[in-house]
């Protein structure tokens, strides 16, 4: 019993007297007052190291602008979502959407993707033209494809 007590004493971890301080996730940072900085004052002051504050501000502004432009371009580019690429024994690339409704093929991935896009447009136009007489599976397929590829609709 005494041996067990000794072991327990050695491995017991005392609780901290003060609870760990963590940022409160419920505090709305947007509600905090803004700190005002006189940019003009910074821009006129040369740092002792030789760095011009106005150059630094300009570089930062440029970086932010470029990041915003890149994000806008990325969002404008059509997304193909999740596609499945396979390559058969003959070396032919086949790309399909997850439902298997549309496929494109080619000797390269790029060729297969370009073929996929034109097949997708064909499929959409066909299903639309025959919408009134589609079996349930194809009617469902039309709805799913429209949700997966809204930029083609």
């Amino acid at each position, binding site marked *: 019993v005494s041996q067990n007590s000794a072991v327990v004493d050695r491995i017991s971890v005392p609780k901290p007297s003060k609870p760990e301080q963590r940022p409160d996730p419920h505090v709305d940072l947007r509600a905090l007052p803004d700190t005002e900085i006189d940019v003009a004052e910074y821009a006129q002051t040369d740092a002792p190291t030789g760095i011009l504050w106005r150059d630094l501000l300009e570089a930062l502004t440029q970086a932010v602008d470029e990041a915003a432009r890149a994000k806008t371009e990325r969002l404008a580019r059509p997304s193909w979502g999740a596609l499945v690429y*396979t*390559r*058969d*024994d*003959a070396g*032919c*690339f*086949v790309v*399909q959407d997850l439902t*298997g*409704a*549309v*496929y*494109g*093929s*080619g*000797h390269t991935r790029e*060729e*297969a993707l370009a*073929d996929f896009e*034109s*097949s997708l*447009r*064909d*499929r959409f*136009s*066909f*299903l639309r033209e*025959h919408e009134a*007489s*589609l*079996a*349930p*599976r*194809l009617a469902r397929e039309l709805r799913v494809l429209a949700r997966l590829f809204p930029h083609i609709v």
Partner: protein
Amino acid sequence: VAFSVRQVRRALGRKLAFEEDTGRRHPTFYLKHDGKVVAVTHISHSSSGDEMSEGVLSAMARQVGVTGPIFRRAIDCTLSRDDFVRQVLDSA
């Protein structure tokens, strides 16, 4: 067994009675049953050579809603049209 593109086109059109829609960029084939379109597939542009790619055949089978082996049997005439249509309707 590898199929030629011509063989696949002929089987779809003649044996399985798919109708061809020539107004598309890709040759498109569709199957009607009781006035409803129950299956649609197309032949990819890259399948212009003599031999149809295995990957493309499998993709066509998925479009039609049957398994690869069933589609192959339908193309090489070891599966009757009625049995093929039954398989298509099961998924339609």
